[in-house]
């Protein structure tokens, strides 16, 4: 990371932890409202600050300031809760994936795998190698001596058929347990299993994609469409909502001519007259009603938003109609 970025990160952290003077803060705010890339850096730093808090890596002083200044709004407390859940989920997810892969590899392993696995235990491996050496040299010594019966008879008892059979069995069992390259195969199996895991450190992401390039599935802000009652009837152009396939939905903003009611309801009607979406607990703020519509509800075409409200007699009154068109990219 360059010195410039580091310097900028320090400044951003001071901003996020409310350590700037009011004048300094005002200048900084004007900068990020006008400068999209600085704004993006602040978002990154904010995420990392939250992550550090959740992971418990903030200094005591920073943690105190964070809790006092940063956690002062409901929205931020939710973001912290979300980050905590996300980190927990990812941790659990990987444990589950690792366990599943272990089970799968156990099912696929050969009859020799348990033997090969035994050699992965250091104590057993050492003992086995030692026993192997004794068997081989012992066997070789006995066999060699069996070719020189005169001398052997002088210094050792004649080897019985049992001893010879035992030595031969040991040799054959050594050969069976160690077929050519069996250790290599075990190691290869192991490395294949590791690669089968959704390797956290090796995501297959297109290396040439730049963060600033439009990328599928990269977060985009939900489009906002401001609607005004009677625009179409007044001969105006029908407002159009361009809805990319990658967004979760859109926010519709209904601009009211007056705010006479406390609670409003909206329903969105498609060209066939069918209701595709409804929300009946909306409040107006500053003569506007904002609500979110999931993208799945909006196909390309024309729609009408019907706004109604409950009057003082608890009767539903029609307030206004808003038209708009959706185009899907």
């Amino acid at each position: 990371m360059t010195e410039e970025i580091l310097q900028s990160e320090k400044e951003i952290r001071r901003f996020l932890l409310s350590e700037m003077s009011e004048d300094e803060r005002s200048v900084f705010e004007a900068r990020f409202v006008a400068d999209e890339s600085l704004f993006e850096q602040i978002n990154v730093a904010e995420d990392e600050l939250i992550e550090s808090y959740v992971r418990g890596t903030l200094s005591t002083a920073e943690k105190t300031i964070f809790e006092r200044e940063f956690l002062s709004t409901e929205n931020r407390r939710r973001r912290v809760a979300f980050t905590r859940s996300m980190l927990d989920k990812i941790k659990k997810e990987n444990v589950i994936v690792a366990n599943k892969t272990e089970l799968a590899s156990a099912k696929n392993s050969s009859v020799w795998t348990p033997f090969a696995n035994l050699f992965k235990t250091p104590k057993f491996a050492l003992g086995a190698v030692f026993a192997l050496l004794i068997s081989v040299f012992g066997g070789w010594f006995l066999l060699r001596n069996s070719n020189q019966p005169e001398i052997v008879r002088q210094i050792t008892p004649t080897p019985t058929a049992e001893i010879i059979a035992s030595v031969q069995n040991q040799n054959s069992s050594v050969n069976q347990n160690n077929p050519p390259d069996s250790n290599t195969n075990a190691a290869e199996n192991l490395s294949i299993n590791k690669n089968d895991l959704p390797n956290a450190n090796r995501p297959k992401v297109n290396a040439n994609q730049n963060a600033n390039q439009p990328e599928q599935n990269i977060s985009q802000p939900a489009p906002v469409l401001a609607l005004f009652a009677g625009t179409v009837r007044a001969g105006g152009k029908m407002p159009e909502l361009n809805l990319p396939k990658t967004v979760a939905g859109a926010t519709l903003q209904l601009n009211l001519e007056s705010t006479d009611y406390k609670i409003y309801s909206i329903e969105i009607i498609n060209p066939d007259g069918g209701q595709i979406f409804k929300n009946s607990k909306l409040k107006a703020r500053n003569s506007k009603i904002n609500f979110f519509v999931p993208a799945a509800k909006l196909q390309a075409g024309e729609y009408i938003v019907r706004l109604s409200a409950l009057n003082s007699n608890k009767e539903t009154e029609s307030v206004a109609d808003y038209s708009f068109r959706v185009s899907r990219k």
Partner: protein
Amino acid sequence: MAEILTQTGFDKLLLTLDADREQAGAKYESLRVRLIKFFEWRNCERAEELTDAVFDRVIKKVAMGEQIENIAAYAATVAQFIFKEDCRRRERLFESIEDVPEAQIAAQANAFAEESETEDERMNCLEKCLAEFSGENRRLVIAYYDTDERTMIATRKRLADEMKISLNILRIRVCRLKAKLEDCTRDCCRKI
């Protein structure tokens, strides 16, 4: 009293932002997001509402024929004024909070409680939203965050190297993905 937006004023604002209407719409949305964060970073609970108030004033100026060269810089200045006005309003509210009926305070507290999702709901939605990501993006998010405090920096540097991008670009990319995951999870929890 809040000013009422007019379609003409809004169209003029868009035209000031960009001659191409689609580009202008994108710039408007981007500026709106920055202003919402401006108020959130000032610890305002009603960030969207205050952002709308900023646009009301900017549109009013534009509709009156005022030439504004840099809409974003102008909006930032207006936002600072609106923030100060909101502070004064909140101070007045605190002075008179004794007069607010207890039932109303309780109702507001209940409304907050109703909006807050449970941990189980959040986990279920998170799982669902993560599953909606493409395989590449899901692996990227998991690889980025599946680390501990000691190895975090080294892991992320290695990840950036493997992807042949700078660490900064990787951080931005993951930040956007996390924002998307967070939005999706919040929307999902609202529907439950």
